[in-house]
C-alpha cells in the first residue's frame, strides 16, 4: 500500500469513526505518525544510495509523496478545526513537552530555518567535509557532481534565497502573532464582559440555585457570544497552518532533491523523537502522581 493512500486511509477511517472530534483526530494523528516514520525510512535509504543521474527522478517522486503526506495532515487539521477549533489549539494528542513549544497549535514556521542551519552545520563540520568542499572548488563542475552532496553544499545563491525566505517568514509569523493577539483580546470585549456580569448577578440573586429554563437560556447566550470569538481563532489557525505548509514547501523548493531529502529526514527525526521523548516524560510524571 502506498503511503499517500495510507494517509488517506487514516483520514477516512478516522472520519467514519463516530467518536468525539478530538478522539478521532488523535487516531488520525497516530496513523499519520506511523506514515511519517515509514517515509523517514525511505528517505534515509534514498540518502544513502550512491548518487546517479537516474535516481534524481526517483528522489523527486519520493519528495513529492512526503510533501503530499504533509498536505494531507493540514487538510485533515483544517476539517477538524472547523468543527472544534479549541481542541486543535490545545491538542491532547501532543505531549506537554511539545505543547510548551507550540506556536498557534503547531510548529513555529521560522524553526524551519534553524533546522536547516543546524543540519547544514552538522554536515559541514563532519570530519573532512570542509576540506572536501574547498577541494571541490578547484575541480571542474563535471567532476564536482561526483562528490556526494548534502546540506553542507548550500550554494551562495541558495543561501541568499534561504535568507530572503527566512526574513519574509519571520515577518509573516509576527503578523499572525499580532492577529492572534487581537483575537485573544476580544475575549474581554463588552458583550462578554456584560454577559459575565449578568450571569454573576443572577447567581447572587438566585442564591446559587437556578431553574432549568434559565440555565438553558444562559448556555445559549454564552454559546452565541463565544461563537464569533472561536471563529476568529479558527481563521488565525488556518493562516498559521498555511504558513507552516508553505514554508516547508518553499524550503524544499530551493534545495536540490538530495538536499531536500536530507532536510526532510532532519524534520521527521526531530518531530518523531520530540513526540516520543515528550510522551515518555508524561508517562513518567503520570506514574509518579499515581505513586504519591
Amino acid at each position, binding site marked *: 500500500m502506498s503511503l499517500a493512500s495510507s494517509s488517506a486511509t487514516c483520514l477516512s477511517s478516522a472520519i467514519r469513526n463516530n467518536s468525539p472530534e478530538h478522539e478521532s483526530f488523535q487516531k488520525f494523528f497516530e496513523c499519520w505518525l506511523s506514515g511519517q516514520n515509514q517515509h523517514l525510512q525511505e528517505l534515509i535509504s534514498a540518502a544513502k544510495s550512491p548518487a546517479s543521474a537516474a535516481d534524481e527522478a526517483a528522489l523527486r517522486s519520493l519528495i513529492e509523496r512526503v510533501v503530499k503526506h504533509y498536505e494531507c495532515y493540514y487538510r485533515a487539521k483544517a476539517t477538524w478545526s472547523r468543527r472544534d477549533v479549541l481542541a486543535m489549539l490545545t491538542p491532547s494528542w501532543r505531549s506537554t513537552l511539545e505543547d510548551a513549544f507550540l506556536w498557534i497549535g503547531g510548529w513555529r514556521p*521560522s524553526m524551519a*530555518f*534553524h533546522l536547516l*542551519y543546524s543540519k*547544514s*552545520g*552538522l554536515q*559541514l*563540520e563532519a570530519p573532512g567535509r*570542509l*576540506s572536501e*568542499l*574547498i*577541494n571541490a*572548488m*578547484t575541480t*571542474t563542475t563535471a567532476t564536482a557532481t561526483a562528490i556526494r552532496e548534502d546540506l*553542507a553544499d*548550500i*550554494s*551562495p*545563491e541558495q*543561501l*541568499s*534565497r*534561504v*535568507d*530572503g*525566505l*527566512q*526574513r*519574509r517568514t*519571520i*515577518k509573516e509569523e509576527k503578523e499572525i502573532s499580532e492577529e492572534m493577539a487581537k483575537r485573544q483580546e476580544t475575549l474581554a470585549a463588552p458583550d462578554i464582559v456584560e454577559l459575565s456580569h449578568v450571569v454573576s448577578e443572577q447567581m447572587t440573586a438566585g442564591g446559587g440555585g437556578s431553574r432549568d429554563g434559565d440555565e438553558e437560556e444562559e448556555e445559549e447566550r454564552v454559546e452565541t457570544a463565544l461563537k464569533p470569538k472561536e471563529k476568529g481563532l479558527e481563521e488565525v489557525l488556518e493562516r498559521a497552518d498555511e504558513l507552516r505548509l508553505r514554508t516547508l514547501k518553499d524550503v524544499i523548493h530551493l534545495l536540490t532533491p538530495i538536499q531536500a531529502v536530507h532536510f526532510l529526514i532532519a524534520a521527521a527525526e526531530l518531530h518523531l523523537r520530540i513526540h516520543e521523548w515528550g510522551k515518555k516524560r508524561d508517562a513518567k510524571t503520570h506514574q509518579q502522581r499515581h505513586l504519591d
Partner: protein
Amino acid sequence: MAGICCGVVGEGETSATIEPSSRALKRRKMELLTYKFIADVAAVPATAAVEFSRKRRKLELCASGCSSSRGCDNGVESSGARNKDGSEGSQANEASRLNLPLNLCENSALEHVENESLHLVNPKFGVTSVCGRRRDMEDAVSIHPCFSQQEGSVQNGFHFFGVFDGHGCSHVAMKCKDRLHEIVKDELESDRAVEVQWKETMERSFTRMDEEVQESNGSDRISNCRCELRTPQCDAVGATAVVAVVTPEKIVVSNCGDSRAVLCRNGVAIPLSSDHKPDRPDELVRIEAAGGRVIYWDGPRVLGMLAMSRAIGDNYLKPYVIPEPEVTVTDRTDDDECLILASDGLWDVVSNDTACGVARMCLRAQKRPSAPRSPGNSGEDKKDAAFESSNKACSDASILLTKLALARHSTDNVSVVVVDLRRER
C-alpha cells in the same frame, strides 16, 4: 555623457561585454573596462549597499576614456551610492533579487596604463550577509570601489569596504551604509595635504557620521524601521563600524565597536583592528575617567547595558560610549593575500586564524582561467577570466566563512566581506 557606458546584465548572463563594431570602437575597448561579474557572489541582504543578483544586475561600466573622470563620479551618484532599492523587508523577493550598484570606474589618470594595472586597481571581493539565527536583520554592508573620483588624483584608486552591526534597531547601521562612504569621500576631497592624513580624516568622518545619526533621530527615519513605533527618540540605537579603505599602497582600517578586520598575510592572520569591549583595560579606564561604570550583566557592559565601549549612535550612553574610531594604516606587501571584514556573528565562533586559513584555501583553490570563450583569444579575455575567477574565489570564501559561523551555532546576524589583495602575477 559620451564617456559613460552602462550595461545591464540580464539573468543567466555572466558578463557584460561591449561589442566592438568598428575600429574606433575596438580601440576604445582597450580603454573601456569590460568587467564580468559573477552571479554567485553571495550578497544577500536588503541591507547591503552592494547587492548582487542573478536576476537583475546593474553593472556600471565607466569608460576610462572619458574626458573627465567626473563622468565616473556621476555614474556613482546616479546608480550606485543612490541606490535605495533594497529597503529592508519591503520586497517579497528582495534577497534573491539583488541589485548591484557596483561602479567599476577607471579614471583618466590611468587611461593609458596597461591592462595589468587596470586589473590591479579594481578590487576583487566577495560578500555574504545573512540574518542567521536572529529574528531581525541589523547588519549592513557597504562596498564602493573607486568611491572617490577626482581628476588626476591618486584617490581614484581608493576602495571603500564597510561592515556595520546595528543594535537596538537597524536604522543606524542603515544610515552608515548609506552615508559613511560619502562622508569619507567628502573629507578626502577637502583634504588639501599632499599625503592623506588618514587618522584625522577617518576620525572626522566618524564624528560627522555620528552627528548625522543624531540629527536624523526622529525625522527621516527609514520607513521599515521596527523601532519607529516604539520610542519617539531612538537614543538607545547604535551600530558598530569597521571600515577599510584599500588604496594601491595601503590598507586603512578604522574601527569603532566589536566588528573586526583581519589581514591574511602569507598565511598569518594579522588583526588590523582591536575590538572595543568594555573590559578592554584601556577602554575600562577611559569609561571610568568619564564617570561611567562597567557592570557585569551577561558579560561586561557599559552601565550594565551595552556590551561594547564604542559605537556610532547610542546617545543615551554618551560620553562613555564614543564614536571615535581607532585607525590603523598598513602598507601593502606582496605577501598580502586577503582582507576579511566581518561582524561579531563570525568572530564570536571563528578565530582569526581559522578564518584566515579558510579564506586562503578558497583563494588558492581558485580555478585556473579556463579555455578562451572567443576564437579571437586575446590576453584581455584571459585576464577577464582571471578576474572573474578571483571574484568567485572571494565569494566562495565569504560564503564558506558564513556557513562555518552558522555551523558553529552563531546566534547573531553574520556578515563577511573578503577582499583579494594579491598582486597580479
